[in-house]
């Protein structure tokens, strides 16, 4: 069966196993690198398409720093005019971070929101991905309605028994609005 163990063949054997495995992995990585990048890109594009109105061309990626933190965002345009901004923001929920993509149109109204990732309790906080909760942010005008749950004196209908998740969602949307304001301020400065 197995060969006798000696220091030389043990080292050699482990070394060989490691080299062969690494080579194999490097090869698989080289093959899958592109599909992985494509899959990630496709996911972002899908999220953008959900949260902003119809647009043409490719979304343009950019980042902005607000209060010491970098926020990636995407500008989309229709007929050469900026049609909206898809902003990624996050807040801490119940089971971890709740990451959102928030679409804000040029007139500072939220077009739609979508959850990029969350680890809330299934059946409770995880309901933040369902339309029953998320659809209330469609066409939300932050100038008229306050982005706080009703318990805290705002206008957001919280998910039953999941105030913390609802609060996190509202905070993330509010952050996105603040990021939008920063983007607009920066653009005005540039002109």
């Amino acid at each position, binding site marked *: 069966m197995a060969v006798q163990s000696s220091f030389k063949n043990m080292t050699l054997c482990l070394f060989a196993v490691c080299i062969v495995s690494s080579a194999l992995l490097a090869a698989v990585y080289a093959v899958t690198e592109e599909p992985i990048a494509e899959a990630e890109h496709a996911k972002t594009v899908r999220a953008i398409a959900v949260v902003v109105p119809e647009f043409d061309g490719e979304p343009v990626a950019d980042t902005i720093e607000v209060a010491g933190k970098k926020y990636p965002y995407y500008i989309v345009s229709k007929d050469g005019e900026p049609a909206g901004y898809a902003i990624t923001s996050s807040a801490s929920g119940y089971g971890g*971070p709740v990451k959102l993509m928030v679409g804000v149109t040029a007139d500072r109204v939220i077009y739609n929101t979508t959850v990029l990732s969350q680890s809330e309790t299934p059946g409770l906080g995880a309901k933040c991905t369902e339309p029953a909760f998320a659809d209330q942010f469609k066409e939300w005008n932050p100038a008229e309605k306050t982005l706080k749950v009703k318990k805290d004196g705002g206008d957001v209908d919280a998910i039953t028994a999941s105030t913390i998740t609802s609060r996190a969602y509202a905070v993330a949307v509010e952050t996105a609005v603040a990021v939008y304001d920063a983007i607009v301020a920066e653009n005005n400065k540039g002109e």
Partner: protein
Amino acid sequence: MEYILIIISAIFVNNILLSQFMGICPFLGVSNKLSTAAGMSGAVCFVITLATLVTYLFQYYVLVPLEIEYMQTIAFILIIAALVQMVEIVLKKISPSLYQALGIFLPLITTNCAVLGVALMVVTNEFSYGGSEPHLLNLGESVVFAFATSLGFGLAMILFAGLREQIALNKVPKPFKGIPIALVTASILAMAFMGFSGLV
């Protein structure tokens, strides 16, 4: 402040055994007696903290600069296996009494998924505590997180072993003997730990 939240969260709220389901094998396997459960917990505590420190440094000083993050899994498990071996050898030399207490558990720890799980968690997951922005943990936070997680492991292990010692004295319906009744007990314990959720 953040360190306190990390500790409370890792021990009670996100207990590695009862809410993350990592390290269930030793949880069910060596929890028949309180003394062995305590020994196992001690060994795990030692290895998780050390392994997380080493893998964290390896991730940010070797894998990331070389852009071979895809080698993470293979590198981490090798590091853990090597560390466990080394701990075993060192312990044998410097503290035979401690080796007698923990030694037999050490070989089992390489395949304890809590160790690899925590090592991977601190370099891939973003954490947020007390409403702070979600972020990856830094070195200090990672080590504190690892240590607190292993304390949570120990707490659950010891509570569970205590419960099982009591159950062994009672009459259990035949099909439930052994693992099923242990799982039912674990379920009730997990329910109790759910009371902590929302604390952080």
